[in-house]
């Protein structure tokens, strides 16, 4: 019973943080950025807008409403592909509408109709809804996958300038018995992500996102066991978990510098009454396969540098856990190996008996200097000055998927901050300034990037960076370096 209680406490301490604001949507499109804002469009003309990717609000419905749209920017146009069934399923068509801006307050805001780019006649083995767009970074060709149960997921080529169907492009069947497909390219492979299971049943929805890959965009898309997606294959990318049930409708959000995220909806957020909600999570890559990461959970961590293997700490004199003990004398002196019989020094290898409790920061911090204290890297020894608590800061904004965090030494108000010289310091208390707010993004290799919302005297985005083995600074993020990559470990 005690064990269960302890586990519950740990889980609640590592609290996941969900998107903020009005996030109810079903079948969201890929997120797209226009004039600094993020937009997504869903079934029934729904639209969500965000200034930062964290706090969302309702937007204006596009001129054409339909099912599970997808959007892509082609030149100076935002092309929205909207599907609708024509009578009963599976007779359907996907229409293209476009706009030069997604901001309804802009004088340029005007949706233009471009017509049908794909359809199904109600008899063939396809239901032409749920479009997913992919601009091939290798060939420059524009591809669209579409379909929803009733047979095959199909691939067609579109004109990369007009967004319309490429003349002569016949549909290619690439998967079956799924929907909400999307296509992405990564490191020599095309990945087809599609949603299996059932939607629209709240917390009883079996939606889950699966993936196959192919060297050719035309397929075959095989999963990790070699099963073709056209025969029902698919490696699980993301299923239900935590308080979220039924993920579907993958969309890639590439933030540059090697930072990738993905959007999806969950059929039921148990903390929002089971509503269907938007979510944004890190996209990781492992052994050639996409892996769904998780946004940082609130909690206490060791922050370990990938570059050095040492841990971030307050630059104060550490006290060994359990107190200082004399080093054993190996030199043959009294008490040491080969030493005389007169050794009275306790043998440090025998322990002190019983459990040594974690350090009480209120006790070990009594000798810490008041005011601002430098930070540095050191070997991790489970000491109080090495344990950092990440807490979401309300009403301070955020970035795609997460709010800003404050980072403090566990059990204290000593706050990690950027200083006026673009270096790092621990302040005596948190006052909410942008130099004390931290953006924490999981990178594609599952390590983390830590960036202040703002560093004084510079507008340049900077990241927590190991310099040397024992020092830290702020530096521009280099995706090819380990200096700005960090591992969070639970202490």
């Amino acid at each position, binding site marked *: 019973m005690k064990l269960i209680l302890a586990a519950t406490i740990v889980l609640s301490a590592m609290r996941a943080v969900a998107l903020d604001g009005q996030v109810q949507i079903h079948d969201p499109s890929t997120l797209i950025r226009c004039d600094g804002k993020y937009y997504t469009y869903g079934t029934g003309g729904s639209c969500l807008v965000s200034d930062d990717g964290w706090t969302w609000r309702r937007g204006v419905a596009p001129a054409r409403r339909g099912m599970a749209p997808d959007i892509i920017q082609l030149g100076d146009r935002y092309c929205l592909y909207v599907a609708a069934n024509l009578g009963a399923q599976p007779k359907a068509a996907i229409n293209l509408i476009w706009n030069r801006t997604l901001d309804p307050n802009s004088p340029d805001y005007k949706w233009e109709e471009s017509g049908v780019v794909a359809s199904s006649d109600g008899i063939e083995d396809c239901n032409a809804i749920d479009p997913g767009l992919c601009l091939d970074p290798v060939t420059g060709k524009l591809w669209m996958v579409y379909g929803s149960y009733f047979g095959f997921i199909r691939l067609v080529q579109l004109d990369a300038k007009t967004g319309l169907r490429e003349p002569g492009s016949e549909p290619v069947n690439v998967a079956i018995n799924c929907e909400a497909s999307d296509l992405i390219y990564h490191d020599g492979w095309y990945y087809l992500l599609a949603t299996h299971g059932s939607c629209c049943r709240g917390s009883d929805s079996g939606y889950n996102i699966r993936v196959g890959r192919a060297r050719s965009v035309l397929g075959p898309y095989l999963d990790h066991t070699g099963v073709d997606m056209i025969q029902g294959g698919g490696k699980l990318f993301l299923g239900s978990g935590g308080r979220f049930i039924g993920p579907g409708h993958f969309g890639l959000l590439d933030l540059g510098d090697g930072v990738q995220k993905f959007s999806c909806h969950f059929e039921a957020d148990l903390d929002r009454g089971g509503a269907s909600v938007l979510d944004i999570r890190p996209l990781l890559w492992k052994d050639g396969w996409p892996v769904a990461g998780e946004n940082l959970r609130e909690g206490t961590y060791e922050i370990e540098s990938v570059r050095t293997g040492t841990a971030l700490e307050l630059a*104060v*004199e550490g006290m060994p856990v359990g107190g200082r003990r004399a080093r054993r004398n190996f030199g043959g002196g009294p008490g040491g190996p080969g030493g005389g019989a007169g050794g009275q020094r306790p043998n440090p290898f025998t322990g002190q008996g019983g459990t040594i409790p974690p350090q009480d920061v209120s006790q070990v911090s009594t000798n810490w200097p008041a005011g601002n204290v430098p930070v540095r890297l050191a070997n991790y020894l489970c000491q109080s000055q090495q344990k950092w608590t990440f807490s979401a800061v309300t009403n301070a904004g955020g970035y795609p998927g997460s709010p800003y965090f404050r980072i403090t030494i566990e059990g204290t108000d000593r706050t990690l901050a950027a200083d006026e010289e673009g*270096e790092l310091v621990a302040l005596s208390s948190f006052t909410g300034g942008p130099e004390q707010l931290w953006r924490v993004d999981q990178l594609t290799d599952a390590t983390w990037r830590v960036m202040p919302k703002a560093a004084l005297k510079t507008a340049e985005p900077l990241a927590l960076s190991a310099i*040397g*083995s*024992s*020092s830290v600074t702020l530096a521009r993020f280099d995706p090819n370096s380990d200096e700005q990559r960090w591992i969070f470990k639970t202490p």
Partner: protein
Amino acid sequence: MKPFPLLVCMCLFVSHAQAAESASPYPATSLARPDSPETTPDAAGFIRRWIILEPIGCNGLTDSAVQAAVKTEYFPNQFSVIPRDGDSVTVGGTNLVWHAVDTKGYNVNLYHFAHSLGKPSSFVLFWAVTVVNCPEEIRGVRLAIGSNAASVWWVNGQEVVGIYGDRQTVIDDGVSRRLTLRKGQNIVRCAVINGGGATDFCARFLDAEEKPLKRFTVSVGQAAK
């Protein structure tokens, strides 16, 4: 470079023959006496010329012990003097001599230094000084150091970096905040405190791109004539 040491330092610049006559009785040293007025950092930017004071007895490697040790006044003008080769100071009634050295490697082996002088190398503090001559002001540089064991470093009188505890020398172990090297002389000073066993240190400057800085020369105070 010439083998180190000359037990009686009368002049900074000596001939090979003179040096050979005063060869150390100990195994080959990595140190030699400078044979030129100034030198340059090596290809990786390491500063190889230093003037080092014979060791002072010292114990304790924790942050507080090291800080207390280095803030103790052992001799006059401890944080400002640019010693000359052969200068001496009296610490606790003992006469200690400054020795100019060039190291053959990236690091300065203080065990070799002490051993060749017949001095202890464990539980001691070494003071070392060098002069970095810059042709122009250089901003945004960092002093990057490593030491066995703890060490504290000053540039132009300002403490810029310290590393503590019983540790081995690792290149760029401790790195200072960004600082400015002024045109002309810049004084780099360190105190290295050893526990037991081997002891050495290394130092270089990194530029704003964190690449080794090499646009300077290095000298130490010349011996009195």
